[in-house]
């Protein structure tokens, strides 16, 4: 990477991306609850209101449906809104605007307009915020043609994917794992984008492919380091984009390793893992499988408030290690 690379937190990287977008393009503005002087529920917008003013960093009333509707309308008229939800769980309140309007309008109007809208969703468990503020609903939105859905796992990708989202002519949904906000990592200065729809191989390996998203990428890398000690060589693919999904990258990896484990925090059933598994089963990689495809996902239950139960409800490093061992079992 050229330019100057600094250590920034994931939240700082997003804030920097939004600032760059607003500096470059006056059509870009931010909307959301408490994103002004309060700085956002997770302090992602921070002091941007002081730099760009209340016209471009707009606090909205507590109505996700209303706010999303304004954002869709603004995008239709040529603006480039970035809309923040306080918690991704509240996407439920705005589904009409996201699913029936933002995703469809380009198609309904014969391609004459588009909706260049960015929505940011703080997601995931681990903060003790209980069942209504801890879900991972990214697969819901990824099911809708007309939307693009990304899940950056590093500060670098958080900035690059947000800038790519702003530049994209269609609605892009960004799911940000709350536990990642404080994670630090190298982030280049200035403008750059990370392509939407491209997975990233975080670690090369020969024995097993782990396809992971968001915070599960880091848990999978920790598990891979442990597994290396016992001679199990794991490849970790960070999916990054759910729609469009980089299926070719997964296929290539599985053809190399012959084994696939999907790790994601959303509820296991009918989730990301189902899609990844089916994509492999339908591809030429099927004939390379030397073990059943396996999924590790969230428990089939609302997320518990109790911290121990909350941990137990989503995949952790030892779960990944155990699953990998089972799949790679080399001798009987």
């Amino acid at each position, binding site marked *: 990477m050229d330019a100057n690379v600094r250590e920034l937190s994931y939240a700082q990287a997003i804030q920097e991306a939004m600032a760059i977008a607003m500096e470059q393009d006056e059509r870009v503005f931010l909307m959301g609850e408490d994103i002004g002087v309060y700085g956002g529920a997770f302090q992602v917008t921070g002091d941007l209101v002081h730099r760009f003013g209340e016209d471009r960093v707009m606090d909205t009333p507590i109505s996700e449906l209303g706010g999303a509707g304004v954002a869709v309308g603004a995008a239709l008229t040529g603006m480039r809104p970035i809309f923040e939800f306080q918690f991704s769980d509240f996407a439920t309140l705005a589904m009409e605007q996201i699913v029936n309007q933002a995703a469809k309008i380009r198609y309904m109007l014969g391609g004459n307009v588009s909706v260049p809208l960015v929505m940011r969703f703080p997601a995931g468990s681990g903060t003790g915020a209980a069942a209504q503020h801890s879900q991972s609903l990214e697969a819901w939105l990824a099911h809708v043609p007309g939307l693009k859905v990304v899940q950056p796992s590093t500060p670098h990708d958080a900035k690059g994917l947000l800038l790519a989202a702003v530049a994209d002519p269609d609605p892009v949904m960004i799911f940000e794992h709350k536990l990642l906000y404080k994670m630090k990592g190298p982030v280049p200065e200035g403008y750059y984008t990370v392509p939407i729809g491209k997975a990233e191989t975080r670690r090369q390996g020969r024995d097993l492919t782990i396809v992971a998203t968001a915070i599960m990428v880091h848990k999978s890398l920790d598990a891979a380091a442990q597994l290396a000690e016992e001679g199990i060589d794991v490849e970790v693919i960070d999916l990054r984009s759910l729609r469009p999904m980089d299926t070719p990258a997964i296929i290539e990896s599985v053809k190399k390793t012959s084994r696939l484990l999907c790790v994601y925090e959303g509820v296991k059933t009918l989730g990301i893992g189902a899609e990844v598994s089916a994509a492999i089963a339908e591809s030429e990689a099927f004939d390379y499988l030397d073990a059943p495809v396996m999924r590790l996902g969230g428990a089939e239950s609302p997320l518990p408030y109790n911290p121990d139960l909350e941990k137990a409800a989503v995949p952790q490093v030892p779960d990944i290690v155990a699953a990998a061992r089972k799949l790679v079992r080399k001798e*009987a």
Partner: protein
Amino acid sequence: MPTEVILPRVDMDMSTGKVSKWFVEENAKVEKGQVIFEIETDKAAMEIEAPVSGIIRDVTGEEGKEVPVGSVVAMIYGENEAYTAPAAPAEAAPAQAAGGPVQAAPGAPIDIPTATDAPAEPSYSAPSTPPGSSLAAQAPEREPAPADSHGIRATPLARRLARERGIELSRLRGSGPRGRIQHSDVLEHVSARGASSETRPAAPAEHSSSRAPAASSGPREAGALNRVWLRQGTGTPLVLIHGFGSDLNSWRPLLVSMPADRPILGIDLPGHGRSPLTSESTLDDLAASVIDTLLEEGVESLHLIGHSLGSAVAATAAAQSQLDIRSLMLLSPAGLGPDMNGAFISGFLRATSEASLAPWVRELAFEESSLGPSFVSATLRARNGTLTQSQEQLAARLFPDGTQSFTIRHLLENFDWPVKVVYGTEDRIIPARHAAGLPGTVAVHLFPATGHMPQIEQRHAIGRLAAELARLG
């Protein structure tokens, strides 16, 4: 009165099962208690004994075919009992339904060819053949038709490889969960017998070997060594040769530290890992098989890295000049002095449990925690009797009386590419002082607080040294 042999119920919720293998043939004499067939359920395989002594006939339970519990799969006749071949498919013998009626005179004993003489084709394709061969076609097939592979548990990869190589899955023994046939089982089959055996009828002796392939007698056929591209990449590859008693998988922990994007090839030494066993045991022989393997793999230019005995093999191979060696890194090399920890070799080889192996593994590293319990269990898992036996023979030749009987010291002087020698100063297997007195052109790297496994104990530093060498091209 003949005795029925039925498919028994071997667990509570079993309603069907299948004969996975017959160990006797039609018309064979069996003793009460003799194992006559093996059945397979969802959960287990189990051997079934003959209920009485006598002659086994009407073997109808086809291998691999699901039948209800309680089905008659064969009959056992008294030795002098007259045999009447069934004239029509009996309800209790569903497998017979596919066969044509046997036109034998009632009461007359008939001469039945053995299964191995008969073509393994479905009997319905030969409706007008003489009675003898028609019956023979129903005899237990040691080599079921490919269609039977549908009932066999095998991974897609194993199925594809078997298909491509013309191997019938029914001939393979699955080592995976619930007897699943995996990639490694196909490879083992290929290397153990060669693809040519596919068309050979199974002789009775082969049953025992197919049930315990690793225990079959004698070394596996000599040939090129097992090698694995541990990483794909571009540029001149790095080739890794492990130490005594180890295998190529031992390099995996180091991979993350190795120069990115370089292809990395691991080779199993003869008598180690998945390479053929060896009767050759001089250093030159080991080096020659490494060279052959590299040439077969199309690797001519390379950076060569060895550990311990693998270092001595690497140096010897490098000296033969058939290869374009770009650099040589010798980790804890053997062959630089006579003394070594002989007790380690014998103790390590004799250990058969975690309890006896762990203390020897602790000798390998300076920090005990560097090689944890998983290293011990992985080492044990990789062992089997014939491998260990082969390694004992190798040790007896190379390290007689706990002495390093060979030297590579004279070779190092002539190398005109970069050579690095790496020792941990606390190496308890081969003393680091062997690094003294090497030619001035050889770089010596001594790591304090490090034992015999610098590639694990100092993996980042070793990766860095490898990167330095790889940068040379």
